């Protein structure tokens, strides 16, 4: 591989020999003008790990409530109790949302001040009993932490009880950006801090639950804060090993206007590529098409991403924050994104068991 920027040559040597990249390497990858070369290196790693495979899942997002005690500056979704537009789903409603062919249910909601822990436990139990073949991925570390803050249930007890009820994995949300500066600035200091977030994922891993990790970028964070975020995740993964997928989330500007525009596609592609290069102990890097848009997500499959997530019926949080892509998308649309990139669509479940390999 030849590079316009010679600073990339030693990094490429490391990538080829599967040597771990440093913080300085990551910053160089953000600084270089040779953006396609960052992608080429990430594509090399992705291809080495997964060949031409790109995963997707037929999933259902359920957002039990938008009632939330927090006031995070980047969120266009939360409502205060009693505020116009606030809603609470019943367990029966949520069970009815899970349709045939769904492989994964993804449940994330607001920090509701009045719902007891048992409500969440019953929710998981009811869905699991109604649909025992559907894998349940539910509750961010921030929500698990809130269950402790509100009801004093230790995360290891909460997770053990939820697992007994049918929980199989945890989503990666609530991480935002691991930075005390930003937590204060964007008013998310009231939720699990980086140590607590990582601690809860570590506990989940020790209980045999697989989890994901996210990063909310493209607002007012600095590039070194993104790098430090990814390095913190890499460190936690070395310790507990249960992370499956890293999902960078591009900030949706429409509702909350922290910045006037979404970060440009090249920044998202570069971030996905750097994640693939830095997170050498993560199996998968996701191009989350709902926030990126189909075009960028499809091209990201050449920049190190090996997953496009799923059909995402009723993806309320991103949708209310202004994602321009429609909330529900058919399998055909996922195929289109994957096939345009010349890759092989592989349908998976929440735990990355292969459901079906589709034609290229």
């Amino acid at each position, binding site marked *: 591989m030849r590079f316009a920027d010679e600073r990339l040559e030693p990094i490429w040597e490391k990538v080829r020999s599967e040597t771990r990249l440093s913080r300085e390497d990551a910053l160089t990858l953000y600084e270089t003008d040779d953006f396609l070369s960052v992608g080429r290196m990430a*594509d090399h790693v992705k291809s080495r790990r997964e060949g031409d495979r790109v995963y997707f899942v037929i999933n259902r997002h359920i957002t039990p409530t938008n009632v939330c005690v927090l006031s995070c500056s980047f969120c266009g979704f939360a409502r205060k109790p009693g505020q116009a537009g606030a809603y609470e789903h019943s367990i029966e409603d949520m069970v009815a949302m899970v349709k045939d062919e769904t492989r994964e249910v993804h449940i994330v909601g607001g920090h509701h001040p009045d719902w007891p822990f048992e409500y969440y436990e019953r929710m998981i139990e009811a869905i699991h009993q109604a649909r025992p073949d559907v894998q349940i991925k539910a509750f961010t570390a921030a929500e698990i932490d809130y269950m402790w803050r509100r009801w004093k249930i230790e995360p290891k007890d909460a997770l053990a009880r939820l697992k007994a009820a049918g929980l199989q994995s945890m989503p990666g949300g609530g991480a935002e950006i691991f930075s005390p500066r930003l937590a204060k600035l964007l008013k998310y200091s009231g939720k699990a801090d980086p140590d607590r977030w990582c601690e809860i994922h570590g506990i989940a891993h020790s209980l045999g639950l697989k989890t994901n990790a996210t990063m909310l970028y493209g607002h007012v964070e600095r590039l070194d804060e993104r790098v430090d975020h990814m390095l913190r995740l890499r460190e936690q993964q070395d310790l507990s090993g249960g992370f499956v997928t890293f999902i960078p989330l591009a900030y949706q500007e429409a509702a909350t206007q922290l910045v006037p525009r979404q970060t440009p596609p*090249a920044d998202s592609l570069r971030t996905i590529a750097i994640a693939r290069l830095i997170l050498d102990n993560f199996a998968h890097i996701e191009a989350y098409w709902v926030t990126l848009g189909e*075009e960028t997500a499809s091209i990201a499959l050449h920049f190190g991403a090996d997953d496009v997530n799923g059909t995402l019926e009723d993806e309320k949080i991103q949708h209310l924050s202004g994602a321009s892509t429609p909330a529900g998308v058919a399998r055909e649309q996922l195929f289109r994104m994957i096939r345009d990139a010349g890759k092989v669509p592989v349908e998976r479940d929440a735990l990355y068991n292969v459901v079906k390999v589709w034609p290229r």
Partner: protein
Amino acid sequence: MIDEIRAKVDGGARLDRKDGHWLLTEAPLLELGTLAADVRFRRIPDKRVTFVIDSNPNYTNVCITDCQFCAFYRKPGHPEAWTLTVDEVLAKVESAAANGATTVLLQGGHNPELPLEYYLTIVRETLRRFPQVTPHFFTASEIQTVAKVTGLAMTDVLDQLKAAGQRTLPGGGAEVLSTRVRRRIEPKKGGPEAWLEVHREAHRRGFKSTATMMYGHVEEPDDVLDHLDAIRALQDEFGGFTAFVPWSFKPNNTLLEKWIKQHKGPNAYMRMLAVSRLYLDNFPHVQASWFSEGKKAGQIALNFGADDWGGTLFEENVHKAAAYVNTISVDEIVTLIREAGFTPAQRNTEYEILRTY
């Protein structure tokens, strides 16, 4: 193979069909893009990306060519058929000029009822009343139709347009310059030569024009290579092409829709741009079409060999008929080019810089 092609490109050797075929079908996308970006920066060393303030009105939707890919046209006598008067066309030019347009790309259906004088008057009056606007009027197949219905030679029509003051032609109506493809999707427009000869004769007379390609329907890589070979050879003769402008077919509401096996998306688009930058070694510019491929794809395309953003397209009706709508302002163009890491510069129809931002 990529090293072999890089050596050719670095040594100034022309790529052949075998190279082109491999680049279109097998080359790793980002390796290809890197090479195309290198060539782009060699040709235009700064990070300048040009755009034009323009509008694409239409003077009629009446058409006798029945192209399978077109959702815009109506047959003569159809209740939805319409044709603008000269004054109505000039009102559209006036509105574009009032919005700062320096180019008006006027094209329409192939309406056999319109006399040569209709076309010439629009050119003359545009130049007289709106001297700041370049009349970028009438695609090759419209000129062929005018020649046919007036009994003049195609070259006479060009001479008359030139005498009226026209100096540039838009590149539409090429689709894919392959005999097989054109026979399948637009049998009444003639083979590749029908398009090529108009541009050849126009270039011979000092006109500048663009070359377009509408891909993503029934073409195979060999058809694309036929197209690239044909315009590259023509460019060797007179150097009259300013830019190459590919876009993907929009199938909604067209007869061709049901024959489309696979949608051509953003990856196919990046590949097409990069291949054309490498293959068309005698074309000064390659255009990223924010309009047909989306603004994000347009921004990404600037890294794959494109150096032009296209225009504002204040008015556009052809894609709209295929249920595809996209709009932009000058401010947004400047912002999009800047945030993609490039320097915006306003150009005119002939790609001369008017203003750098």
